[in-house]
């Protein structure tokens, strides 16, 4: 992994590992998420991540629906996971 600011294209969910480690005790990149929009399931490491805007946006690589958004502000971290209908945390 190398840093990528200014890039036009996306990275993948591996880039979520650090930011989500500030929120969850479990490594969320190995968690399997189900897309609310198309029901596809995959480890969060494999989703598409757009990190060059005001926050992190994770999308389903199959249907492009937003799965997760994370914004860090001085008041705290804002997390929206409404695009995931469920998440499996493997043992």
């Amino acid at each position: 992994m190398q840093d990528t600011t200014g890039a036009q294209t996306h990275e993948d969910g591996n880039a979520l590992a650090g930011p989500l480690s500030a929120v969850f005790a479990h490594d969320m990149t190995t968690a399997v998420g189900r897309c609310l929009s198309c029901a596809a399931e995959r480890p969060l490491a494999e989703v598409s991540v757009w990190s060059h805007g005001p926050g992190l946006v994770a999308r389903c690589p199959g249907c492009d629906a937003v799965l997760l958004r994370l914004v860090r502000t001085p008041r705290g971290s804002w997390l929206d996971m409404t695009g995931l209908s469920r998440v499996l945390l493997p043992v």
Partner: protein
Amino acid sequence: MTSTSARLGGRVGVRPGWQVATLVDAWAESPSARTLVLDVPGWPGHAPGQHVDLRLTAPDGYTAERSYSIASAASPGTASSVGPETVPDAGPTRVELTVQRVPGGEVSTYLADAFAVGDTIEVRGPVGGWFVWHPTGTTGPLDPAPVLLLAGGSGVVPLTAMIRARRAAGSRVPFRLLYSVRRPEDRLYTRELGVPHPGDDGVDVTVLYTRSAPLDARREPGRMTPADLAAWGWPAELGPACFVCGPTGFVEAAATMLLALGHEPARIKTERFGPAGD
């Protein structure tokens, strides 16, 4: 605000987070890349393929965060570099990163040019449990299958960590690395990955030059093709564990080729870092 959004600020900071690391050694890995050795107190060890986040803070409060793959072997207390660059006292709290300098990049140019031995930087990690290979059964499930590593540019960094971890663990799992790089001078870890290294029996390295190649190269310059994967990779029937890391375009092309060659999607793990750096 949607009904399931939650303010989590109250929880941030109670998790293991940022800590201050010190640069203890550094060297040029190529004309445009520099390896950094950080001492991170309390480093818990890591699995090869994991990364760290670095946070830089300017005097006026401006901060920048970037992710870098870990280059060093997983096993605490093991010197991971080889050759003249060997860090003699690489200890359990030492972590090596290799930074590719990108012209105009505010972070990579700082890390490659200005960050000096003795300087401090904030580190979070190790993070990422998906793009990892476990040389022994201690950090994760042991997978005896052969390993196929496909690297584009500085995507070779976490894959080199896997080769180093294999060496450190005395693993006999057969490895093949296909390393796509523009020109000979862009190669990283040239000596270590260029000649058979003690402990690396069973590691086969093929360098695929895309722009210009030396006379003894295995093929003409060009992007990686299915024929390269067929010639220098593992057949899908062996069920190798495939790790692909590089710019987004490289990773998507390589993953598509692997699928077309019959590799199982579940055996292909990828890590993309976009088309350019900063």
